[in-house]
């Protein structure tokens, strides 16, 4: 079991370094054991340096840099152990346009095995989606699902067939 942790840790760390580079367009991100001599009980800390910046604790990064680093870790874990689906609620809120686009592209690439459900207000993220569900409250306080075409008004439809569109 300590062996399994070590193996998971190393694989996920390799993925994390790769995901970080993809999302930041360079730079270094990795996990480190707080106590190398005691793998069975050690905690994990994280360090990162976006391209050109110094390596430092992830807590010193900017709001957007932190979110992107967190997504890199998430995707690293998923690559090692895919979940059947993954719900991301407005993870792109603090990201600028370039980072939003890079994240959306990565989600598309990772979505071969996993159903990603991304709640978002960002156009760049919507552009990467193969399917779009619109939620409306025509009647105040009562939610309703509708079919959405990009750049067109939502089409209220008799539920629920349109959802597979």
């Amino acid at each position, binding site marked *: 079991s300590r062996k399994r942790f070590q193996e998971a840790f190393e694989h996920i760390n390799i993925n994390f370094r790769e995901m970080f580079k993809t999302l930041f367009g360079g730079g270094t991100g990795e996990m480190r054991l707080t106590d190398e001599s005691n793998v069975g009980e050690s905690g994990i800390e994280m360090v990162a340096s976006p391209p050109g910046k110094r390596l430092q604790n992830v807590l010193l990064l900017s709001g957007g840099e932190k979110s992107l680093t967190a997504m890199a870790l998430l995707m690293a874990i998923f690559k090692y152990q895919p979940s059947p689906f993954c719900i991301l609620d407005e993870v792109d809120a603090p990201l600028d346009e370039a980072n939003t686009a890079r994240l959306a592209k990565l989600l598309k690439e990772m979505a071969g095995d996993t159903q990603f*459900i991304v*709640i978002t207000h960002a156009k760049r993220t919507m552009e990467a989606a193969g399917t779009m569900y619109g939620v409306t409250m025509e009647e105040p306080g009562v939610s309703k699902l509708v079919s959405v075409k990009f750049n067109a008004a939502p089409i209220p439809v008799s539920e629920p067939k349109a959802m597979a569109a």
Partner: protein
Amino acid sequence: LKLKKIEIQGFKSFADRTEMRFHGSGVAAVVGPNGCGKSNLSDAISWALGEQSAKSLRGARMEDVIFAGTRDRKPLGMASVTMTLTDPRIEPSPLSMEVIELPPGADIIAAAPTGNIPSDKPDRKRDIVITRRLFRSGESEYLIDGKAARLRDIQDIFMGSGLGPESYAIIEQGRIGQILSSRPHDRRAVIEEAA
């Protein structure tokens, strides 16, 4: 395991029966104005997986997930969420819930009981249908493929599937910031869950 469909009724702002079908892979965007119910959909899925903390569902008590009415509509007496998942790898043989003979290489999902299957005729061989209901009286109901079950049985289905309680499969609004500020030993727990 692939997500196939969810049916929601009386859960938070989804007063009327709502059905949401999925491809099982790919990126699906959920969009709409502030307050229209997008995060409520995410809560419905967490709840169906067995989430027990009302606070995680942004309520004070579990009763807060039942549609509480609007100015023009009365509150409802029950919240219900049904989730249909498909396991594409398996070739299950007809089994009852009690006597489980697992084919080589199959995990526990393969032993999904045959029984009274809900209206959409899910693929009996491959689908598992989970239902969770809460009544305003405080009573709860749990069904697996239409048969009465305990909450514990539902939670067990998802252990080790990547949808367990320590997993990062559901990132609630605002939670992305917490992923990095977790303590070194909490981080270890997440890696161990994936191991």
